[in-house]
């Protein structure tokens, strides 16, 4: 069985490779701090396997995570100035390879789809070929490996460009551009769990109960959808908002009191939460990481582009729920 943990180890190796290259990068003013950050991240990915399997205590990893945050907070994470390829190199490559350059890029979705649609059903004896629940991630991991192989065979980078290690060098360039934003999504997932453990959800639920409009259907719909969006903006994740808002309003008022269609109420309620995800830096993997990947000047650029869609779409969700879930139409 192909396991997703293998690919976390590969990620870990990539981070360790970045750390190794960073130590020797004299153009980076903070090369030791930066190498420590990437190295810790690499080790954490491997150690995480044992934490998940409960064969190692979690607190050492906790310390590692806090050290990473401290390195960032004390400005020890920086990047080298040795930049990417210059325009002449890019033009020369495009002249030489033309649209063949798209092949490795298109290998990624092709292989990923093969895994998600076909190999997901393959079994060897009684065990599935791919670890259950992680098929998409495994597909992405295999796709990345195949694409690197195709790219190396096709492009044959010279020794000066790094030879077979060229992908590592170029990957490091992109990772350095992302910087600390690479670990923010995981840190936010942790914050969400701490919020839940400390009872933030119940506290917000209590607050919501005080503003509940009793006896008004349209009021209930508005508060449920708006609450999903606002709670998601705070937690960065509609999944965290759903159980709380549903327990506070969705179930007792919209279903029990007004007899709404549960499938419609809950589906549209979740999508109202997604409107919140479009607006919040707490959803770092969707909003801040793309800004870092595109090397934007403002980390909030994607959010600015999304808020004017999120607001009317939230209103649409309220209208859809009101009209379709309560027999107003049909």
């Amino acid at each position, binding site marked *: 069985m192909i396991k997703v943990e293998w690919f976390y180890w590969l990620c870990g190796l990539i981070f360790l490779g970045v750390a190794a290259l960073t130590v020797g990068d004299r153009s980076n003013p903070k090369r030791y701090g930066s190498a420590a950050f990437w190295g810790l991240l690499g080790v954490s990915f491997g150690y995480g396997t044992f934490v998940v399997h409960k064969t190692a205590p979690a607190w050492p990893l906790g310390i590692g995570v806090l050290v990473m945050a401290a390195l960032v907070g004390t400005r020890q994470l920086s990047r080298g100035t040795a930049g990417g390829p210059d325009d002449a190199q890019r033009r020369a490559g*495009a002249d030489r390879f033309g649209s063949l350059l798209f092949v490795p890029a298109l290998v990624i979705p092709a292989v990923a789809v093969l895994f998600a649609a076909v190999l997901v059903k393959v079994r060897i004896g009684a065990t599935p070929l791919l670890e259950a629940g992680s098929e998409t991630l495994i597909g992405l991991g295999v796709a990345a490996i195949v694409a690197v192989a195709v790219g190396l065979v096709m492009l044959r980078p010279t020794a000066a460009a790094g030879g077979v290690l060229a992908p590592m060098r170029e990957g490091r360039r992109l990772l350095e551009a992302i910087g600390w934003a690479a670990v923010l999504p995981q840190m936010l997932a942790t914050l969400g769990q701490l919020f839940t453990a400390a009872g933030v959800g119940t506290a917000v639920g209590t607050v919501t109960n005080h503003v509940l409009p009793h006896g008004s259907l349209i009021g209930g719909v508005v508060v449920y959808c708006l609450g999903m969006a606002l709670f998601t903006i705070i937690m960065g994740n509609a999944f965290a908002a759903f159980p709380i808002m549903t327990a506070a309003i969705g179930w007792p008022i919209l279903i029990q009191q007004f007899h709404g269609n549960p499938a419609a109420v809950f589906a549209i309620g979740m999508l109202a939460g997604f409107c919140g995800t479009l607006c919040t830096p707490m959803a770092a993997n969707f909003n801040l990481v793309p800004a870092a990947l595109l090397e934007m000047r403002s980390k909030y650029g994607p959010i600015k582009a999304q808020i004017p869609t999120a607001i009317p779409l939230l209103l649409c969700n309220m209208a859809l729920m009101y009209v379709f879930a309560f027999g107003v139409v049909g």
Partner: protein
Amino acid sequence: MLVLIGVLLVVVGFALRLNPLVVVTVAGIVTGLLGGLSPMKILDAFGNGFAGSRSVTLFIIVLPVIGLIERFGLQEQARRLIAKLGVLTTGRLLTLYQLIRQVTAALGLNSIGGPAQAVRPLIYPMAEGAAARRYGSVPPTMAEKIKGYAASADTVGVFFGEDIFVAIGSILLITGFVDSTYGLKLDALHVALWAIPTAICAFVIHGARLLWLDRQLDRMARELAPKQADAEVPQP
């Protein structure tokens, strides 16, 4: 109620533009302490949370190959290709990409797009190339705008497509939660079908805004052009 201070810390931290990683870490520690967790339990929470959420960082696995083909001129080639397709303006290209992203996500093919494997190497360079063809050059303010919209086309597309697929996490969370908590027997297919009206609204609203982007870029190009013209004629 005291635990809500953690939420407040996050809001204030982001508003003051402090480093988000530091803000989130401090908010986590404070929330844990206010919630009565021991320091050891807080360290455990950081360790478990980090280990359990490694999947959100797995996307970095595609960066080496993306970097490699970028070095050999992938983005340049994407620009050249789009220069030949005159009908595809920046806005039309991004609308088309959002449609593809929504439809494939609805079929469960989530990993077909994404900021690392599609937007940075392909979609953004093509969107910028289309603008370069139309306006001659793309100044940084216009590039920044196109980048934001390119990322948004991907995100809106996948968000409001994936919920139409039955076996996606959010659908399973809905059915799992309400079935176990309230004893319902919700059909995942029904939940997924009710995601379709919102998906259509999302495509109409964001698609229209992506098309409108062309007008905004036209205006930005007009506003930026006279200044450049002045700068280019210093002597009589």
